[in-house]
C-alpha cells in the first residue's frame, strides 16, 4: 500500500512525514519523529504507557492509526515542560514524591494526569485513582503517584489563585 503524507501538530510544532495508513501512531511518534517518551508497554490497549494527548483527549497511541491523527493536535511527554527546560508541576511532584521507580509508566501517567487535572483541577483521591485507572504501574503500588498528582493539583491551584 502506498504511503500517506501525514501532517499534524506535535508539541506545538507542525510536523510531517510519510507513513502507511496502518502505521500505529505510537510507531510514527517514536520512529518517524524520534519522540521516544511515549512507551510501548503492552501493545494491547491495556497499560497506558503509550498515552498521548490528542485534541484534548488522553489516547492510547498504540490503538490509533496514524491516518486517524491526520491534522490532529498531539502532545507527548516531551511537550509538557517549559521550552527552557523548567519542569511542569506534575513532573516536579513526581520527582518530589517518588511517583516513579523504573520510570517506564511515567510518561503515560503524567500525560494522563495532565488531562485529568485540566478537566478536574481539584480531584479527590478516589477521583485520581479512577482517572488514572487506564495506566498500569508495576513498581510503585500507585500510592506515591496519587500523592504526586494531588500535590501537583495543589501547586497548580495555588499558582492560579496567586495569578488572579
Amino acid at each position, binding site marked *: 500500500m502506498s504511503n500517506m503524507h501525514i501532517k499534524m501538530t506535535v508539541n506545538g510544532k507542525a510536523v510531517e512525514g510519510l507513513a502507511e495508513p*496502518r502505521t500505529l501512531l505510537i510507531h510514527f511518534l517514536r520512529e518517524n519523529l524520534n519522540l521516544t517518551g511515549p512507551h510501548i508497554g503492552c*501493545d494491547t490497549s*491495556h497499560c497506558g504507557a503509550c498515552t498521548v494527548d490528542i485534541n484534548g*483527549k488522553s*489516547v492510547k497511541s498504540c490503538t490509533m*492509526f496514524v*491516518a486517524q491523527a491526520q491534522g490532529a493536535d498531539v502532545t507527548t511527554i516531551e511537550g509538557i515542560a517549559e521550552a527552557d527546560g523548567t519542569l511542569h508541576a506534575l513532573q516536579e511532584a513526581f520527582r518530589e514524591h517518588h511517583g516513579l521507580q523504573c520510570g517506564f509508566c511515567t510518561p503515560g501517567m503524567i500525560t494522563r494526569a495532565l488531562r485529568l487535572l485540566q478537566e478536574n483541577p481539584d480531584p479527590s483521591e478516589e477521583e485520581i485513582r479512577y*482517572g488514572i*485507572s*487506564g495506566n498500569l504501574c508495576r513498581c510503585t503500588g500507585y500510592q506515591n503517584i496519587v500523592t504526586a498528582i494531588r500535590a501537583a493539583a495543589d501547586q497548580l491551584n495555588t499558582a492560579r489563585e496567586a495569578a488572579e
Partner: protein
Amino acid sequence: MIPGSFEYHRPGSVAEAVALLSRHSDDARLLAGGHSLIPMMKLRMAQPEHIVDLQDISTLHGIAQDGDTIVIGALTTQNDVIGSNVLAETCPILREAALLIADPQVRYCGTVGGNVANGDPGNDMPAIMQALNASYRAEGPNGVRNIAARDFYEASFFTALGEDEVLTQVRIPTPAAGHGAAYVKQKRKVGDYATAAAAVILSVSGGNCTAASIALTNVGDTPLYAEAAGQALVGTNLDAAAVDAAVQAAQAITQPVSDGRGPAEFRTHVAGIAVRRAIALAQERAS
C-alpha cells in the same frame, strides 16, 4: 503487532460512506473509535482492505431529544455519555454503564455506535439498549431503516446490519418519568469485560411494579433480552417470590462459555446475582 495493509478513506457524509462500502463490499470496514476494531486488526482477526473512518461526519455526533425519543449520534463517545446532562436526567443508566466500560482513555475514543454495532457479546451497551427497547437507525444504498435492538443481534459478531449500511443513530424511547434503572456488572478488574452483567428498568406505582424489562450482558452468544424475567415482576410488589422468579427466568436463558472469567455455571450464578442486585437498586431509585 502490526495490522494488515489497507487503503484509508475519510468521507465527509454518510452518503459518501455508504458509497464507499457499496463499492468495496466485503473488503471494507467502518472505523469509529477503533477500540474494538484496531485490537482485532493487530491480531489479524480482521484484515479489511479498506478502512472507512467516520470521524469527519459531523451529523453523527451529539445527543438530542426528539419528542419523546432520545437520539444519540453513532459517534457520540462513552466519555460524552458520561458528561451529558440530558442523559443524566432522562436516562441515567447509560452514564452508570459507561462509567463501568474500560478506562478513561478507551472511553474518550469508544463510541456508542461502535459499541452497539460491534456484535461482541461482551459489549455493555447492547443489553441496556434491549432493556430500554431502543432501535438503531441504519442508512444504506436502499435508504434508511430502523432495527430494534431486541432483533439486532444474531450471533457473536453477526448482526442485522448489512455490509453496506452505516448505523447512524441509537434511538431510545425516553424512559417514563420516575422510572428506576440499574446496570450491575461484575468484572475482574478495570478494563475487563463482564463476567456477567444485568440491566433492569422498572416503574413502580403505589408499591406495585407496573413495568419492567431486564437484559443480560456476556452470558450468551449475543446480549440477551430476558422478557420472561421482566414479566415475572410486573403486577407484583417486588416481594422475594417475584424477585426469585425473575432471577430464575433470567438464569434460564443464559448460555455462557467457560473462560478466564469462570466456568459457565459460575457465570450463570453471577448473572443471577447481578439481576437480583439490579432489581433492588432500580426499585430504590424508582419514585
